[in-house]
């Protein structure tokens, strides 16, 4: 059994809570005491239906206001897979939460109300999913029961989306007609839409092939922690971390960055002991043949395939703080296991994520804005373009006075 992490984008009106409720309910992942609690609360509020949104809206303020403020994580399993849902709010003022949910997702479900078609917010969700390079996208055209299960409506929305998606960057898009309310094509195939030949959503989630999404080519091993036992094993010096991409084997020639010192892998230790081969996303401890200087924030790579050490970063940044990002602003930057400082040299444009229109030289980026920025860092970072490597192509910005995480960036090609 493996894990699929997926994010859902959409608002309550699109039927997102109903869809998640149905996935959980039909996979028998809602427990009776949870359902009892939800039914009790619904009854107290005088609702005449059981509001499944109460299952995911965990905070008092969310329940009081009937809105989803923050990302909620939900878990369910089928015999084939374990699923982690990042349930993200869909409104524009929660763009940062959607970005957060999408950052770790293998798959994103974009929900569309069949009666309304491709709205501005659906375009926004698609843009974010594309920017964060979620490898698999499901366009779920919901509420098909309310459009008489019409193939024409479905085809028209699909075509509009394909046209819009051409401006974006998707590797894999699957379109499904569903009704979360009636359950059609959610867990079981619909009896109302014999014109649709594809699988139900759950079948797709269980079978979508994600193993090949891993990058097994570029060896990137950010050193997280140096293990030096004090307990009589003074000769042991191991470099611990999570292998983010590529394969490593004992005997491989490697290079330590940014110093550029060469060495060779002596042993690789995993949670289960020494292994002949490591692959992502294993947490491993690597020992080298030579006594080279290696510390947290360094990266072990291969001589013939290295990330680019650079102090000049071009990136798309999503701003997450009430105090705007300004040209000339200085922040801490965390990239893999390395932390440096960054100066905002330029904000080339702000992207209108509804229309993809670019507003040139905005001077600053406000909360929930996305823009193209140039940074200068105090130390070289070992980067790859985000489209090639999600781990070595991403970073966060931290306000050094408040310690808040204020921005998230994906590195673009120069």
């Amino acid at each position, binding site marked *: 059994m493996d894990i699929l992490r997926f994010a859902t984008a959409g608002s309550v009106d699109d039927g997102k809570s109903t869809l998640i409720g149905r996935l959980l309910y039909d996979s028998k992942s809602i427990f009776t005491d949870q359902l009892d609690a939800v039914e009790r609360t619904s009854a107290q509020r005088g609702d005449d239906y059981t509001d499944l949104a109460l*299952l995911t809206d*965990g*905070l008092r303020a969310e329940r009081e206001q009937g809105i989803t403020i923050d990302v909620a994580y939900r878990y369910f399993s089928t015999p084939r897979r374990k699923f982690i849902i990042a349930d993200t709010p869909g409104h524009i003022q929660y763009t940062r939460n959607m970005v957060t949910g999408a950052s770790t997702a293998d798959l994103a479900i974009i929900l569309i109300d069949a009666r309304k078609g491709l709205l501005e917010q659906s375009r926004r969700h698609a843009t974010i999913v594309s920017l964060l390079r979620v490898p698999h996208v499901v366009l779920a055209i919901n509420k098909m029961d309310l459009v008489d299960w019409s193939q024409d409506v479905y085809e028209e929305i699909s075509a509009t989306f394909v046209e819009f998606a051409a401006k974006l960057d998707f590797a894999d898009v699957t379109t499904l007609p569903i009704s979360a309310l009636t359950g059609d094509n959610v867990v079981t195939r619909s009896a109302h839409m014999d014109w649709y030949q594809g699988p139900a959503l759950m079948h797709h989630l269980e079978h979508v092939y994600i*193993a090949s999404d891993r990058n097994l080519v570029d060896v990137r091993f950010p050193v997280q922690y140096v293990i030096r036992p004090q307990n009589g094993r003074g000769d042991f010096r191991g470099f611990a971390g999570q292998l983010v991409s590529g394969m490593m084997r004992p005997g491989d020639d490697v290079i330590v960055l940014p110093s550029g010192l060469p060495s060779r892998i002596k042993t690789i230790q995993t949670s289960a002991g020494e292994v002949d081969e490591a692959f992502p996303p294993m947490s491993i401890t690597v020992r080298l043949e030579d006594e080279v200087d290696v510390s947290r924030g360094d990266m072990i790579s291969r001589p013939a395939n290295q990330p680019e050490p650079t102090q000049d970063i071009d990136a798309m940044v999503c701003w997450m703080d009430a105090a705007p990002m300004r040209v000339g602003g200085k922040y801490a930057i965390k990239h893999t296991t390395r932390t440096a400082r960054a100066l905002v040299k330029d904000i080339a444009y702000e992207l209108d994520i509804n229309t993809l229109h670019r507003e040139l030289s905005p001077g600053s980026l406000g909360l929930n804005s996305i823009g193209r920025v140039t940074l200068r860092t105090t130390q070289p970072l070992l980067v790859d373009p985000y489209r090639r490597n999600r781990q070595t192509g991403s970073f966060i910005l931290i306000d050094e006075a408040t310690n808040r995480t204020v921005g998230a960036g994906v590195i673009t090609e120069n």
Partner: protein
Amino acid sequence: MMDATASDGHRFSQLDHLESEAMFIIREIVAENESPGLLFSGGKDSIVMLHLAAKAFAPASLPFPVVHIDTGHNFDEVLLFRDRVVEALGVRLIVGSVPEAIEEGFVREEPSGSRNRIQTPVLLRTAEQHGLTALMGGARRDEEKARAKERVFSFRDEFGQWDPKNQRPELWSLYNGRIHAGESIRCFPLSNWTELDIWEYIAREGIEVPSIYYAHEREVFQRNGMYFAVNRHCLPRDGEHTFTETVRYRTVGDATLTAAVLSQARTAADVAAEVAASRITERGATRGDDKVSEAAMEDRKKEGYF
């Protein structure tokens, strides 16, 4: 054992994923924080945490102490187990004692007798006395819906309080553990694990847990539809008659309010099978304390509870 070899296309099971992620998170908090500690209750989640931490730093010993907030309401089996594990690993144990804190007047016993709430000030004081600026715990997001919203690196202000509306965004695996003096981080490496994952992992790794997690015969009585063990912390009231049942515990918290469930599961694999078939959450089945209100957990966390 890792079920990964070159020939089968580098398969990585859900347990491999969760294990690797947890080891990464544990190493990250230790690398970024000057003085972390690991909260250890003797419960299954904290036992798994300790197992993962030992792996994360092998062959070195754990670079942080283990902290137990002793409510005085322990199951005897759990305390004995704690001492044995701590000794075997050779780690430093810090105990924050709620009974001692009551005796010196630092906290006051609540009328209900539950020490769930008053252990929070003891936890905060213990961390402060020992200069601990990060505490790792085995809490999982599937346990409770306030927890489902909490970050892996959860920032706490100088009063140890959680502010759910003001959490740091957490993207990719880039955790922000920065703090000012007096502030701290609570770190939850098992955030993405479910109760079932925990038991499957215990079975896979052959991890020892206190015997009361497995089916055994015990003298019990029924209260609010739940089975409570007769012990010095928890006695039947008038009208509650006792009888012998084959039970096990799904959680081993405060002995005054943790209930047992009927079970025949005698191994970790049996328990995993039972959990997979269960239609009720572990807290719903066994905890008196979370039923008080819809937001009981959120409120306790805002005060500094784990």
